[in-house]
């Protein structure tokens, strides 16, 4: 489950712009992905503060009028657990009082780990990890930034935030970068039939998408307040 859209790319911008100064001094080869988006140079704030505030307001999501508990059925042959979750941004994030009290303990204790789910498969990730997906992700190019928005567990050394079954995606930020496409060595499967002196050799060579975890961040209470969360008892 990932959200790659124009928005998601735009969110990744401040990070890349922060690194632009170092890039220009060392090499010119890494300039491709910044070159296409020169307009958003005004965002000087850190990455966490800028992007997500607009998501929690209901007016920003006019295209999803009825968020339901059931996931939208996009393909019949995909099991229901692997269907994408609908966006839940129609209402502001609801946080219980106890979570608000204990969240600073978790969010201030670094480093964090996340059990991010992609196609209903969990990946235990920390910042800087290398992730080789067991499939070839379509329509991504090297350098793209994806945001994982489905997590079952967020944690640090002493504290864990468990979702039931998933943590709300507005509580954390997990971004990964597409590094390229890798391949496996050629597989040769020997097939035989009875009473036939012939061995059929079936070959296959799968390709996999390589990702690098850029950041795993759990939002602080102040950031949640900025985005307008609602405290419920």
């Amino acid at each position: 489950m990932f959200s790659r859209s124009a928005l998601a790319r735009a969110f990744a911008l401040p990070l890349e712009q922060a690194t632009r100064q170092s890039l220009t001094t060392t090499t010119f080869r890494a300039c491709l992905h910044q070159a296409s988006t020169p307009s958003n140079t005004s965002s000087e704030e850190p990455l966490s503060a800028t992007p997500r505030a607009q998501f929690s307001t209901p007016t920003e999501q006019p295209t999803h009028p009825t968020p339901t508990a059931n996931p939208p059925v996009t393909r019949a042959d995909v099991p229901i657990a692997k269907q994408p979750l609908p966006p839940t941004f129609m209402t502001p994030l609801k946080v219980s009082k106890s979570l608000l009290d204990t969240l600073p303990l978790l969010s201030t204790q670094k480093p964090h780990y996340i059990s991010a789910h992609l196609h209903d498969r969990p990946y235990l990730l920390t910042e800087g990890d290398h992730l080789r997906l067991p499939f070839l992700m379509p329509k991504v190019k090297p350098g793209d930034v994806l945001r994982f928005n489905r997590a079952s567990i967020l944690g640090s050394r002493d504290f864990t935030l468990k979702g039931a079954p998933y943590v709300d995606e507005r509580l954390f930020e997990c971004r990964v970068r597409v590094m390229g496409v890798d391949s496996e060595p050629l597989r040769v499967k020997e097939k035989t039939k009875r009473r036939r002196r012939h061995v059929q050799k079936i070959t296959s060579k799968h390709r996999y998408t390589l990702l690098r975890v850029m950041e795993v961040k759990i939002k602080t209470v102040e950031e949640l307040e900025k985005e307008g969360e609602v405290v419920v008892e």
Partner: protein
Amino acid sequence: MPLRGIRTVTTARNGVGAFILPCKRLDFHYCDWAGSSRGMLAFLKHALPKFATENPQIEIRVSPRPHKHPIITGHYINGREKSICVRNLEPEQIFVKANLLKEASGEKLKRTKKPVTSINESVRGIWSPYHGGLKSV
């Protein structure tokens, strides 16, 4: 007092902050005389300028290799290189091969069982029988 491993200096990892494409150079070799280079020559004439402008971060070299089959060689930031022989291929097929070299990581092909490789130390720490929750026998 929990157990802690020895702290290590942080290492630079491509893609965490800045991203550099692993493929840094592509060499295109052709032969003017041989028929197996016909598709390669068409690719060099018509498709390569567009490919090069779309990928300004890759250095592209074109050089003849007389009396040999045409090949594409990719050079990667980890020091390795990959070569693909493109004899008798059509320009579209050569474009696919060039894309393959462009997106490759440069590593030797391996079968891996685990999707995640990490050099970070364990977040939760190493379990110790002598700390926390001691039980008397």
